[in-house]
């Protein structure tokens, strides 16, 4: 690995450590009002330091390992709300299918390919698929996705319309009209 990449890797580790430690302070040390006094003493701060260090060490190769991420936050906001609405629909649907006496399900495995390059995009897509109606991501290998669908009607939006794939492509700037592609 070249020198520049090493330095940025160290900066990323320090950044992750700081985020975790600030979060710890926020949750356990900080006193915000008199009903919930904070634990502002040496033992709690030391515990926070040790815990953050261990987490950063264990997850050193998982999140933010130096890959460049292009994300438009103002494009992500509508997507997140759309996704939350899809979660509500998913739950109503699963509730209907589970409580129906005949259980109208016909499970199948589907397989499709995505044009994404970034790991972050694939992670978002996999988690979104699992949260939306009747589909669960089973395997992600390179650009191949294997998805378990509870019924054929749930498989079609992923295979034919590809709404979710296009929306995510828009959020992470991997579309045809974005400058980074």
């Amino acid at each position, binding site marked *: 690995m070249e020198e520049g990449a090493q330095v940025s890797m160290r900066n990323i580790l320090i950044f992750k450590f700081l985020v975790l430690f600030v979060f710890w302070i926020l949750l356990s040390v900080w006193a915000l009002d008199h009903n919930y006094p904070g634990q502002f003493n040496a033992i709690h701060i030391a515990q926070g330091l040790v815990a953050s260090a261990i987490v950063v060490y264990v997850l050193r190769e998982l999140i933010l390992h130096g890959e460049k991420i292009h994300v438009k936050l103002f494009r992500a906001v509508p997507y997140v709300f759309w996704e939350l609405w899809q979660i509500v629909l998913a739950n109503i649907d699963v509730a209907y299918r*589970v409580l129906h006496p005949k259980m109208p399900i016909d*499970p199948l495995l589907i397989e499709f390919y995505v044009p994404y390059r970034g790991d972050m995009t694939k992670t978002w897509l996999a988690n979104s698929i699992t949260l939306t109606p009747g589909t669960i991501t089973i395997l992600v290998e390179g650009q191949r996705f294997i998805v378990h669908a509870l019924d054929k009607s749930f498989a079609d939006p992923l295979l034919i319309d590809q709404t979710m794939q296009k929306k995510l492509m828009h959020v992470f700037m991997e579309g045809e009209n974005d400058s980074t592609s």
Partner: protein
Amino acid sequence: MEPLHIASAILVFGGTFFMVVGSIGLIRLPDFYARLHAAGKPDTLGEILIVLGLILYEPFSFITVKLFFLSFFILVANPTATHAVAMAAYKRGLIPWRKEHR
């Protein structure tokens, strides 16, 4: 009864309903993969609804912020865990149940 408490009760009740439905689905659905649908999704919405209800119940304080972080964490962690379990089963060669087409 304050209006906020009524809204909070409705949210907590809705969350509990989805959790119960998820548990019923865990028993009724035919195989491992189908049961994951019942285990992963209703839990996410159910827990988020319950947490939202608790946020409304308490007056705004630091607890609110903590509960908000909790629901965000559930939203990320739940599908990830579901995917991990499903992938483990798939790699061990578990074949999904199919409806018999005659």
